[in-house]
């Protein structure tokens, strides 16, 4: 479902990704690990279509489409979802209005009928389940005054609400205490399905105790330097990244 071939990306004149290649199939959970500054977040932004990331080489194919030619909103409508490390705060837009606008935009793009506020509310309640999104949270401005845990829970609720085909989770564990981490991981695990791919980006192995990957890729200096099964994550936890990062460029 996702084929990244020899991807080169420059940000503000600086080369960040230097020939990254990765392939994943529907139904799989892949983890991308790596030290700070290795290019993990850049990869997530490039996949979601953020401006300011210049692709200087390589290709990304998603379900047979040239992903790099699509606008961010087209990618979302085609089933790509990025749970962000730092979800933005938008004063003046309530959380419910945001969810309704986003859900209906995706439904419109797929030629499905739009839902009214009541039905969106019902759906959010049903999808949120254990994630405990209160009505009070939905009435507040988007992410404004939310704790770190609340922000990540809301990202996870969106994952459940939008039902993407490919979900990219960027440092979903950052800023979470262990209880919140378990809650979010349960939310993510509930979305595992043979039709869906999950790309979990994380610095620490901790999250992977709760979301078990089929495959682990280690990124350093803009490319994949090691690959393996879930045992690779445990190895990294014990040894650290030092050995891998020293691999000659």
């Amino acid at each position, binding site marked *: 479902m996702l084929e990244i071939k020899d991807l080169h990306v420059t940000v503000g004149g600086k080369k960040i990704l230097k020939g990254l290649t990765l392939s994943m199939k529907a139904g799989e959970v892949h983890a991308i690990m790596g030290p700070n500054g290795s290019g993990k977040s850049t990869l997530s932004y490039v996949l*979601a*279509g*953020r*401006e*300011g990331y210049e692709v200087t080489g390589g290709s990304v194919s998603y379900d047979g489409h040239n992903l790099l030619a699509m*606008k*961010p*909103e087209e*990618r*979302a*409508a085609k089933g790509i*979802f*990025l749970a*962000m490390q730092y*979800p*933005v705060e*938008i*004063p*003046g*837009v309530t959380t419910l209005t*945001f969810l309704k*606008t*986003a*859900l209906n*935009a*995706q439904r419109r*793009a797929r030629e499905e009928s739009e839902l009214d506020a009541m039905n969106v509310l019902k759906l959010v309640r049903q999808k949120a389940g254990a994630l405990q999104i209160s009505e009070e949270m939905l009435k507040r*401005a988007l992410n404004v005054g939310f704790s770190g845990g609340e922000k990540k829970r809301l990202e996870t609720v*969106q994952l459940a609400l*939008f039902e993407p085909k490919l979900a990219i989770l960027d440092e979903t564990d950052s800023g979470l205490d262990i209880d919140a981490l378990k809650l979010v991981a349960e939310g993510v695990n509930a979305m595992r399905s043979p039709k869906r791919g999950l790309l979990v980006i994380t610095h620490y192995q901790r999250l992977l105790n709760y979301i078990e990957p089929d495959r682990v890729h280690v990124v350093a200096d803009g490319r994949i330097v090691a690959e393996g099964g879930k045992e690779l994550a445990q190895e990294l936890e014990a040894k650290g990244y030092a050995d891998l990062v020293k691999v000659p460029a």
Partner: protein
Amino acid sequence: MSAAPREARRAEALDSFRVRGMPHRRFEHWRYSDLRAVLDAGQVAQAGTAHWQIEGLPHGVETFDLAKDAAPEWVAKNLGYIGNRPTMEEASLAFADGGVALRVSRGARIVEPVKLQVSHTGNLRVLVVLEEGASMTLFELHTMDAGLVRNIGVELALAEGAELTHVRCAPTSPKSFLIEHIAVEAADQAHYIAHFANFGSRLSRTEVHILLNGEGAEAHLTGVTVLGAELHADVTSHVEHVAGKTLSTQLFKHVAGGKARAVYQGKITVREGANGSDSRQTAKALLMSGRAEADLKPELIIFADDVKCAHGAAVGDLDADSLFYLRSRGIPEREARKLLIHAFLEEAVAGIDDGALRDHVWRDVESALPRAMEAAK
């Protein structure tokens, strides 16, 4: 009272206007709106009198048609005597052969808004007198035909404990000139709450001068300006804290696209003896095109002690992180931009208590947005 003193005041206004003439960019507060460059005094004099209409006047509000002679005392003693008589206001007094005066008597609280509709070209006078403890909402709605010249002088006299809410909507009219001066005098504990929604003309000027004369008097001003193409809108305020323990707040949000120009000038004077006064002022502008312009000019003059004054102004573009976040959730770029503009304006509209009036302002914003979101042609 006979008509003679009224005519004498009008003659005085005419002289005053003739001496001072049309304001131009060398007038300190007309720097961003050079009226004389686009309109001459003769056009104002010959514009005649604009039309006004009030549909379904709520019970408890008294009116007097200013086209009639024999004005009652409450009209005669106030008309032309509120505020500091700037030149365009003198012109409206001199040239308007009509207008409307409204009064609410002591303690009466009028819940239903008084809908004052202004149409046609010309000068016009409006006077509102609220007696002690009276309250009223004035919804001033402009109907803009193509290419008109409208110059309005509004006087608002608020007695002790009175409360006036003033919502003013001026729709887009690219070839028109719309000049309005609002003079407010507030006695002890009187409140003036205003919202100005401006959608631009060839030259549009909304100027409000507020004298917080009585202890504990308050003025709360909010407003939105949404412009595109080559439209112009200028909101200029001058709040004078004359008495102690007076409070004023201001929050203005402007959106300008195309080659539009949005102006906000906010002057606050805290006069000697107005101790314990508090004034806050914020103005922000969003520029949707590289050729749009926003001029935000705060000004503070303080002659008293123990005073709190805060002001802030900022001009910017939509936040790139927010825009990406919304688009990454499937919201198309244009819709995402619209949502963020709404979010930007929200706090300046939310303060309108009356739901129907608030909806009216949002509808006007909605219809002005497509033009404001266009780049310069």
